[in-house]
């Protein structure tokens, strides 16, 4: 019964774009984490944008997965930006007591891309 939906990862220029469209169970979250890291390695991407605007909740497990991925990506010289978090999700995450160190967030995809562009320019200067 356990359907393994793979979450697609799209490469555009130097960036990977991941749009999470399903409520993830824990295994799927872990799978996505390694999938993204493998894609960074394969493509040499400099940034990853993860759109979570469809997610209606982020609990401690998914929160930890996202921040863990940001740390691992940083070691691989790629920046992770979480895009489109719903306000209710943001409020709940803070109340849950979950800090997500090293995770950058942007209101939407466009702002997320600007954030990554700025960061890469800074590194190149």
């Amino acid at each position, binding site marked *: 019964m*356990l359907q393994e939906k793979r979450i697609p990862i799209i490469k555009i220029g130097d960036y990977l774009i991941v749009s999470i469209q399903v409520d993830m169970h*824990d295994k799927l979250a872990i799978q996505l984490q390694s999938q993204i890291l493998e894609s960074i390695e394969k493509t040499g991407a400099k940034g990853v944008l993860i759109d979570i605007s469809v997610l*209606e909740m982020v609990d*401690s*497990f998914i929160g930890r997965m996202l921040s863990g991925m940001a740390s691992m990506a940083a070691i691989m010289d790629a920046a992770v930006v979480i895009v489109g978090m719903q306000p209710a999700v943001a409020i709940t995450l803070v109340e849950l007591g979950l800090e997500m160190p090293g995770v950058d967030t942007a209101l939407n995809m466009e702002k997320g891309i600007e954030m990554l562009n700025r960061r890469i320019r800074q590194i190149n200067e």
Partner: protein
Amino acid sequence: MTDPIENRNWTRLDKQTIQAEMDVVKVRQLVRYHAKEIGLGIVDQTRITTAASELFRNMFLYAEGGDVLMDAGIYNDHKAFIITCIDRGPGIEDIEMAMKDGYSTGDGMGYGLPGSKRLVDDFYIESTVNQGTTVRIMKWI
């Protein structure tokens, strides 16, 4: 037991079982559905769904699953949406420790119980070693 887990005057909205990992997702979606139906706002829907998700994961990881009851009822003069998680797992030896941030005995992150408590209006836990754990959370409507 000073705090009765169930009240006969409450209205049973749903009863579900957590056995597999996918059940955690399915049942938390049902929590969201009932929270919305009962009239909770979007932030409270998210709070109770997230709190429930933490408890369901605990049941799945530590107790091989368990039962979930969803009720609507009055508690301490509040109209409430009530979720009760009952498992027959190993139980919790030191509840005080388990309620501390960052404390975990297993694969969990240690945010389960204390995080869940912060997100709801009422939190009640009772546990007997080798018999199981019951956690009840409420959100005022």
